[in-house]
């Protein structure tokens, strides 16, 4: 697929990379229909956010059509139209049960990096440095959405993409705890 890659300070390129795959049971893959550049992407572009690596795929504001789901995904199916919030939340930790999604302490694989910078780790984010999880972002043709039962907000009306896309920078779609347990 094609993806917008951060290749260094003031160096962003559209490159051909591998397609994303389902890596965990709660993952979903979206085909992106609209994505946006956020003002905060400028901090990355200008090189002010530590722990960016060349090759990182940018983008934390995106929406699309569900292409594939992992076997523990119960809230979404292929063909659903969704907006995805930029905070990745597990839905099951103490913070998520209180709807404090951005403090989720299960979704950042690099929590130790964020602890070093902030004292305590928050949730993983899409396309926003390795200390924020190192997740590939959505300025691409496809994206992998982890913990897909929790974040994605289904858009069942005929509102055009442009009217709902910007919910991705704010809103969390989750309403109920996942019932999927080992």
């Amino acid at each position, binding site marked *: 697929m094609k993806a917008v890659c951060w290749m260094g300070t003031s160096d962003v390129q559209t*490159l051909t990379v591998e397609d994303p795959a389902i890596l965990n049971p709660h993952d979903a893959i979206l085909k992106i229909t609209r994505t946006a550049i956020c003002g905060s992407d400028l901090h990355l572009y200008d090189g002010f956010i530590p722990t960016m690596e*060349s090759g990182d795929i940018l983008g934390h504001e995106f929406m699309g059509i569900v292409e594939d789901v992992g076997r523990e995904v119960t809230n979404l199916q292929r063909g659903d139209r969704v907006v995805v919030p930029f905070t990745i939340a*597990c839905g099951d930790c103490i913070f998520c049960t209180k709807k404090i999604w951005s403090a989720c302490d299960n979704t950042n694989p690099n929590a*130790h990096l964020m602890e*070093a910078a902030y004292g305590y780790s928050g949730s993983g984010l899409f396309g926003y440095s390795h200390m924020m999880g190192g*997740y590939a972002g959505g300025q691409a043709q496809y994206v992998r959405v982890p913990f897909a039962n929790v974040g994605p907000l289904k858009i069942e009306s005929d509102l055009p993409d442009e009217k709902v896309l910007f919910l991705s920078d704010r809103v969390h779609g989750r309403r109920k705890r996942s019932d999927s347990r080992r």
Partner: protein
Amino acid sequence: MERALSEKPNAEKVSQSGVAGIVLDGHYLPPPVDKDGKQWVRTSALILRPPSELYELWRDVEKAPLWQEQITEVRVTGPKTSHWIMLTGDDSGKSIEWDSEVLNDEPDKGIAWSSVEGDSNNAGEVIFATAPGERGTIVTVLQEFRMSKLASAWETLTGRNPKQVIIENLRHFKALAETGEIPRIEGQPHGPRRTTGKAKKSLYGETIATPTGGQRTAG
């Protein structure tokens, strides 16, 4: 919990907010060392599951490779004993092995163990204490190491000292217990990493394989 905390006078103080002792590359400072060369590690996590469930997951040692870094196989060899195999490098395929014995086993409350034979000299204890306010379980891990092949393999090959390994493993354990999977970014797409990208990857510890959580569906 109070008992365990008071009987290990050489352990570090539990930090009041977050995890203490980290430097900016995300590597934790090494644990304190006794005069006789023993290193102490203590860490804890609040896990939103009942103590009984967490005890069972921890006690099922053959499942340890699902959530402990670099552990490739654990075989139960008796009611209280098990044999452990750990990978010591990314591509060498070399491993170290040791036997471990459960010293104290209190269902739903805690487990203490010690290595008995082999390449590792470690002992530890995990305590499951019901957290107040229906917040699940406070899981406290205390572990001691003498410098051995295990401790030095972690340090030299993964860049993680024993303290960080224990902290990361508890994080994996929490994620697996609460959500049924361990968050990962290995296997996702990216553009060319270039030289600095590769160096950073190893500095950040991203070259260490994330344990699968037993649920890997692809990749």
